[in-house]
């Protein structure tokens, strides 16, 4: 697993897996989360859908099929206050071609075409395509809230970070879709080409040097201009906890709690906070699982996770609406217990062992490996899972307690059916 520079502003993070049967390659453009977030998400969809050479979805999809069912999908996510716009390619290796065709090189070139040679007119993206993608994005934003767990999480973050760019949903805001034009998207595309950091991540058995050469040739053709500094605001401490309740026609109540984790940047005290999160609510040995689920039978899921790129810790649970307060008290109680050092050395060791084991397993899955590589965005630090496991191993009990005491509750969000007719 390693990271190399392709050309100015463009990096290549890869892991060679000799026994892999296919290639997974993700081409990510990094941009700030700002008022252009929705337009960029729309742009990414347009880029993934067609190219100049294959200008309709029909032609494009048939081309992908001829590459043995290769797929190119747009994936948008947040990494701190950065929007990651990824075009993700998957295709089988050449040795499985039925007529000795080349698959991988052609598929990688097609992926590069999506980014570099889109189907544009001199004055912008074609209006009919823009219209179609606007509707599809609108639908995608709508269906995101059909999943109530996801919806509650989005809403908690929106409330918690209402004065920070992090409040934005990575695929954008429905209210901002209408005003977007083909011309604006064209300008945005040119801007992204010249001014965005790019991270190409790759997992597979294809020779990485050959790939690197292709990528150098294709992506190196862009003369990158000045690159923006991508910064995320870290609030180390909450200014007091707020509670937000929302009523919807749901059978199960959702409880989401946001905490500030006391971090000042993504690597700040990370191993200790990561370990503390695991003890608090990150596995079946954790306090939340053992007590809130197993002892109190309050829920099916109750877990904590750390969003390291923003320095926040989130607890999520699904509960009977009338049990919301009881669950909230129980969760707070467990956090207090960690703060007070009320956990055994055995639990500490179990959490370390669990994290070490899961990090060391990352490379046993192509998908997990790709996600691992992608998290380094434009970061100056690059760490392998084994290196992180070692860092976590050396965290002391005192450091865990210290980390827990840096955590402060910021927002409690409850979604239930109160105020709705049964």
């Amino acid at each position, binding site marked *: 697993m390693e990271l190399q520079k392709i050309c100015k502003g463009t990096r290549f993070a890869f892991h060679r*897996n000799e*026994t*892999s*049967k296919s290639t997974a390659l993700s081409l990510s453009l990094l941009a700030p989360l700002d008022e252009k977030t929705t337009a960029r998400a729309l742009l990414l969809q347009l880029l993934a859908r067609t190219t100049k050479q294959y200008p309709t*979805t*029909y032609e494009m*999809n*048939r081309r*992908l*099929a*001829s*590459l*043995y*069912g290769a*797929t190119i999908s747009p994936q948008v996510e947040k990494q701190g206050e950065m929007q990651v716009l990824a075009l993700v390619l*998957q*295709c*089988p*290796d050449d040795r*499985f071609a*039925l007529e000795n065709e080349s*698959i991988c090189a052609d598929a990688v070139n097609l992926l590069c075409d999506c980014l570099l040679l889109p189907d544009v007119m001199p004055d912008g993206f074609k209006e009919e395509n823009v219209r*179609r993608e606007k*509707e*599809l994005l609108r*639908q995608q934003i*709508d*269906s995101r*809230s*059909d999943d*109530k*767990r996801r919806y509650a999480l989005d809403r908690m973050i929106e409330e918690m970070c209402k004065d920070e760019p992090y409040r934005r949903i990575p695929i954008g805001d429905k209210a901002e879709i209408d005003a977007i034009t083909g011309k604006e998207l064209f300008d945005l595309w040119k801007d992204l080409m010249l001014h965005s950091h790019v991270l190409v991540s790759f997992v597979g058995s294809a020779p990485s040097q050959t790939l690197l050469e292709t990528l150098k040739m294709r992506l190196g053709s862009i003369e990158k201009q000045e690159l923006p500094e991508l910064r995320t605001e870290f609030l180390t401490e909450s200014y007091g906890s707020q509670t937000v309740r929302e009523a*919807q*026609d*749901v*059978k*199960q109540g959702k409880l989401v709690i946001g905490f500030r984790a006391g971090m000042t940047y993504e690597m700040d005290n990370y191993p200790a906070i990561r370990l503390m999160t695991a003890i608090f609510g990150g*596995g*079946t*040995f954790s306090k939340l*699982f053992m007590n809130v689920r*197993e002892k*109190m*039978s*309050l*829920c*099916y*899921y109750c877990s904590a996770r750390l969003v390291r790129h923003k320095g926040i810790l989130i607890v999520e649970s699904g509960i*009977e609406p009338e049990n919301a307060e009881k669950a909230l008290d129980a969760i707070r109680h467990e956090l207090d217990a960690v703060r007070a050092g009320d956990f055994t050395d055995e639990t500490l060791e*179990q959490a370390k*062992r*669990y994290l*070490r*084991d*899961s990090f*060391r*397993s990352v490379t*046993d*899955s192509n*998908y997990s490996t790709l996600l691992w590589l992608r998290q380094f965005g434009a970061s100056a630090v690059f760490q392998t899972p084994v290196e992180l496991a070692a860092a976590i191993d050396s965290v002391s009990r005192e450091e865990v307690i210290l980390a827990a005491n840096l955590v402060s509750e910021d927002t409690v969000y409850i979604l239930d059916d109160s105020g709705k007719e049964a």
Partner: protein
Amino acid sequence: MEGKCIRSELLGEQYYEIKHQSGLTVLVMEQPQCTGAFAMFGTRYGSVDTCFKLESDDDYTSVPEGIAHYLEHKLFESEELDAFERFAQTGASANAFTSFDKTCYLFQCADRVEENLEILLDFVKHPYFTKETVQKEQGIIGQEIRMYQDNPDWALGFNLYRAVYHKNPVRIDIAGTIESIAQITPELLYACYRTFYNNSNMVLAVAGNLTRAQVLAVCDKVLQKEEPVRFEQIVPEEPDTVAQPYTEAIMPVDLPKFELGFKQPAQPILRDCKERVSMDILLEIIAGKLSPLYHELLEQGLVNPSFYVYYFTGRGFALPTFVGESSDPERVRAAILARIEELRQNGITDEDFALTRKSLYGQELRAFNDMDDLAYQLVDSYFSEETMFSALATYREVTKGDVEAMLDRLQADNSSFSVVKGETK
């Protein structure tokens, strides 16, 4: 060492199928290049198994809905350390799932593979149910049920199965209902366990960095020899026609969701690989991502990229489906039916067949990358009475004629349409 080696020259992969002296079938795929391993211990028992008796029993036992899933949760508990606590000692990630026709217990780990394997076999083979522990799980599973009740895709699927089938137990919610799980007792759990958790009804699949000798040594240590049990099941007779052509539910969704399914003959119980592959190709030709129909519907704004086709099959059920979101589900349904008619009239073009087959074959290859997929496929193919490489080989052999023969199975007047939509504003 006994056992047969099952090999794919194409993939350069192989695994061993070994009948262990305990009566358990053990499948091992040695992957020395991996860091750790993934293991799955499964039984041919799921939510569809609702009425059964051991050959030695006098009467049939009818069990409450959701009991297979409840049993899965409860097996993690023991009189001493429960399974989660034991895996916490090793650092492995353990889990389990219950589907319509099987229940599987699994772990993934980087280290201490044999120790983990021992825990897995041991906890599944040692049930411990008391009134108190059974009672305790009601709150947890109750919340799991509530969670599914808020999931529109879950409702969409089950509403479709209830529309297609009059009696087939695939209609039953895997997790049961709050009311049905309240009827579960330790005695009923033991009755299910005795019938379905015999070694002869189970399989162990392991993929990863260990040898079959290591796996077998753990089996020798943990597993007792069990005489195979014979059981009988009552499967209600299912009429050939659908129960309802249309079903609809109101849930808080913005865009309506739809699922169209075509009823299939009740026999055979297990669909063979050739049928599944042929149907997969046919569905893809009708409305998959590379079809003209998908393109038209997308351009007209009638479907979005969440649209997919799927042949839902398992022990005792088979249902070709078209699933998606649309502002006008009825128009999508009509377009799919028209396209099927058109293909019946004109046949499938050579080009469409060749391209679709190539595409699906390529996508099938992806399932051979990761240990978790490998273990899952080992179990799945074993219960389907095939090998793990059957589907891949079938994609290379299937003909256009095989695919066209499936067209007769898609009859508009024997289909059901499930829709979930928001309240009319």
